[in-house]
């Protein structure tokens, strides 16, 4: 699972390096996203700009990850490609997740991201 993490204050940006979030990797993806949230993370923003395919298994994995991360950390999404955005729109999951145009927009500024560890 290719996930890389950068912190910006209490916002943690997770760049998803996988091109597909599908039934073949849904369970591993859910666990990997869950494990990205640190105790001090208030907002976990998944940058999905490299993901060009997401099926209902992938959607289910995101919903499950949001529940697992719990009430103290918000799971948000950024950089949805056209194919991925459509799945959220058709299922109305775009009303459940906060969705940003890009990771940069999610952190609300243009300052460079600091590497974690």
């Amino acid at each position: 699972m290719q996930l890389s993490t950068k912190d910006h204050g209490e916002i943690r940006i997770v760049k998803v390096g996988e091109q597909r979030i599908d039934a073949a990797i849904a369970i591993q993806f859910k666990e990997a996203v869950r494990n990205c949230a640190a105790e001090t993370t208030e907002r976990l923003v998944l940058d999905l700009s490299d993901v060009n395919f997401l099926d209902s298994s992938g959607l289910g994995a995101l919903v499950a990850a949001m529940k697992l991360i719990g009430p103290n950390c918000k799971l948000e999404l950024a950089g949805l490609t056209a194919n991925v955005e459509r799945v959220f729109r058709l299922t109305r999951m775009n009303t459940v997740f906060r969705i940003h145009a890009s990771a940069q927009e999610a952190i609300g500024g243009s300052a460079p991201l600091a590497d974690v560890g």
Partner: protein
Amino acid sequence: MNDARSRVCVSLTADQHAVRDALAELTEALGAAGLPDAAIGTAELVLAEVLNNVVEHALSGLSQGRIEVTLRIGDGTTIAKVWDDGHPMPGHALPTGDCPDTQADINELPEGGFGWFLIQSLAQDIRYTRQPDGNLLTFTLSNDMAQDYP
């Protein structure tokens, strides 16, 4: 029937990684036939949901189960046939494809049940037939560029 410009047939086993490989082959054929990206994206999603359902339900517990997908790519539409030698659909009928309730409380949000909703939202003329040797699902997909990301 459509006047097929090209036809592609892929056989696969009951495995999610085999589904990935099959989808790559099928979308390559759609691209080679000149379909726009939006139509290819629609076809890939519908085929993925159908094949995932076959692997998870029809061929559940049947490691030797077989699936065959045929696409007849015509000028305006693509006709898909998906056959498998697994268990029949419950009641020998198509699921209703209602959208799960996404306006529920966070802890009550559905984590599944979207597959048939997406299939029925994006494909047309969906028909299921239980045959003596397996299941046959047929459906039609639009190749139209105007159908830009419904």
